C-alpha cells in the first residue's frame, strides 16, 4: 500500500486525511523499533538539510525534531530567535530567504504568531517543506500525531483496530492551547469523540465549530472517558484573569488521585508538557501507572521521523502532484 501524502508541508492537523494520518501512524510504529537497536540510524534523509527555526522557547519539541532528523541521517541546523539576527528585528521573509539560500530542504518552525508557518509555506519565499512545530495559539500537528500514536498503542494495539468511538477528554486551558485544537481536529478525523473540559472563560470563541463536545464539569466526564489529556494553564499568554485563583482552578479542573480513581481501568492520563505539578495535575497522578507522559516523549521522536520521512524521503515532485499515477503503477 503506497499512499503518498498529498502535500510537501505539514501546517495543520486539518490538512491530513484519515489515510494520511494512518500512514504516518503506521510508519511511526515501524520506526519506533529503531529505539531498541544498537545503531539508531537510518539512511533515508542522507544529504538533506533540515532547519529547526524556533522563535519561541521549546525543549522537548526542538530536541525531538532534532533527534528525529539525525536518526534519519539528515543534517540539522538549529536556529533560535535568541542570539540570532531575529532578535535584531529581521523579518520572517528575510529569514526565509536566508534559509533558502543555504539550501534547506525542510524548515521546522515554531512561532509565537498564529499562521506564521502558513505564511512561510505559501508566500513563495522558499521551496522548502514547512513543518509547523507550534504556532501561537493555533496548531501543533505533530503533537496531535504523537498523542494519537500513544493512544493507539494503548487502546488499539492490534493491527486493524482504530480509535473509532474512543472518548478523549481534553482538560484545562483550551483557549490558549494549540495542542487542544490540533488534537480535536486529528482525533475527529480518526473517529474518536472529543470532549473539551474547561471553565467557560478558557473555552475559545467559536468552539462549537470544533466537532467536539464541551463540558464545565470534569467529575461527570471522567468515568466515561478512555483518555484524559491535561493541559497546562498558559499564564504567559494570559493578559487578564481567567479564573479566581490557582487553588480554585486546581480544585475544579486539576487531576488528583481522588479524581483519577473514578476513571475506567483501561483509561490513560496524558499531558503534552511542560506540566505544572500541583496545578493541573498532582505529582502522584503524573507518576502513576496510568500516566503515559514519558512515553509521549519517546513516541514523539518516532512520529516526527515518520513525518520527515514521508515529506522528504521520496522524490520531491511525486509527493505533491504525481502521487496518484505512481501508486497505480503496479
Amino acid at each position, binding site marked *: 500500500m503506497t499512499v503518498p501524502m498529498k502535500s510537501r508541508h505539514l501546517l495543520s492537523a486539518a490538512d491530513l486525511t484519515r489515510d494520511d494520518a494512518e500512514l504516518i501512524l503506521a510508519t511511526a510504529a515501524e520506526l519506533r523499533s529503531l529505539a531498541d*537497536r544498537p545503531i539508531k540510524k537510518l539512511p533515508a534523509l542522507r544529504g538533506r538539510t533540515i532547519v529547526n527555526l524556533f522563535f519561541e522557547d521549546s525543549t522537548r519539541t526542538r530536541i525531538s525534531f532534532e533527534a528525529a532528523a539525525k536518526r534519519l541521517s539528515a543534517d540539522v541546523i538549529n536556529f533560535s530567535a535568541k542570539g540570532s539576527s531575529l532578535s535584531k528585528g529581521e523579518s520572517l521573509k528575510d529569514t526565509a530567504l536566508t534559509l533558502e539560500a543555504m539550501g534547506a530542504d525542510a524548515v521546522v518552525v515554531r512561532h509565537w504568531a498564529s499562521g506564521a508557518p502558513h505564511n512561510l509555506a505559501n508566500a513563495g519565499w522558499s521551496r522548502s517543506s514547512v513543518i509547523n512545530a507550534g504556532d501561537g495559539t493555533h496548531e501543533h500537528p505533530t503533537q496531535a500525531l504523537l498523542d494519537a500514536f500513544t493512544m493507539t498503542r494503548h487502546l488499539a494495539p492490534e493491527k486493524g483496530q482504530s480509535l473509532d468511538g474512543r472518548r478523549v477528554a481534553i482538560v484545562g486551558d483550551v483557549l490558549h492551547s494549540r495542542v487542544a485544537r490540533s488534537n480535536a481536529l486529528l482525533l475527529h478525523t480518526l473517529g474518536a469523540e472529543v470532549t473539551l473540559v474547561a471553565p467557560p472563560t478558557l473555552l475559545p470563541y467559536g468552539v462549537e465549530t470544533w466537532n467536539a463536545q464541551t463540558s464545565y464539569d470534569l467529575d461527570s466526564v471522567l468515568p466515561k472517558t478512555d483518555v484524559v489529556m491535561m493541559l497546562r494553564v498558559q499564564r504567559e499568554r494570559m493578559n487578564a484573569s481567567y479564573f479566581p485563583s490557582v487553588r480554585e482552578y486546581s480544585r475544579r479542573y486539576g487531576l488528583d488521585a481522588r479524581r483519577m480513581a473514578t476513571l475506567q481501568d483501561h483509561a490513560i492520563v496524558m499531558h503534552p508538557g511542560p506540566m505544572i505539578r500541583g496545578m493541573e495535575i498532582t505529582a502522584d497522578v503524573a507518576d502513576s501507572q496510568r500516566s503515559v507522559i514519558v512515553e509521549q516523549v519517546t513516541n514523539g521522536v518516532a512520529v516526527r521521523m515518520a513525518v520527515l520521512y514521508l515529506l522528504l524521503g*521520496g522524490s520531491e515532485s511525486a509527493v505533491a502532484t504525481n502521487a496518484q499515477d505512481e501508486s497505480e503503477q503496479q
Partner: protein
Amino acid sequence: MSPTHPEIDSPAPADAGRTVLDARDVSRALTRISHEILERNRGSRDLVLLGIPTRGVHLAHRIAAKISEVEGIEVPVGSLDVTMYRDDLRMRPARALLPTEIPPGGIDDKTVVLVDDVLYSGRTIRAALDAMNDIGRPRAVRLAVLVDRGHRDLPIRADFVGKNLPTSTAESVAVRLTEHDGEDSVTIR
C-alpha cells in the same frame, strides 16, 4: 537500464500468463532449499532466517517449518524491511515501511539466510545487506530465493535457488503465495 522494482505489497495479478511453478513445484523447491540450507550449515545451529517483506517473510516461515520437520528444532525467523536502504528511494514518492522484526537472539555471530521471492537486479539484496549492517554482524550471510530470473545489475548471486528462470527484461514474473494471494504459483508473461 535497471529493472524497476515491483510494488512488493500489491497482490500479484491473477490473470498472469504462463505458469512456471504450480503449488506442488513451489513446495518441492522449498523442501529442497531447506535441505540444502541444513547441509550447507551442517545442521540448524546458529541459523537465522530473515525474509524480505512481503512474500520473502512467508517463504522464510515455510522454510523454517520444513527445517523443524527434519531437525525438530525451531529456527528463528524474522523480517527485514529494506525500503529506507533502497538506491531508488529518491526517485519515487516516499513508500510505506514494512515490518522489520529481528528475532530475540539477534543476528550477531549467526548465519543469516536472507529469503526473497524473486532475484532480479540484485538491488534489493544490496539494500538488505546494508540494512543488516545497521542491526548486527552475522558470521555469514546466505541468500535463498524461490526464483532467479537473471539480469543482475550488481555482483550478487543466490546460494539457494528454487528455480532458475531465463527471462527477457520485457517479461514480468509474478510469485503468488497462499498467505498473501490465496494460492501458490509462479507465472511469467
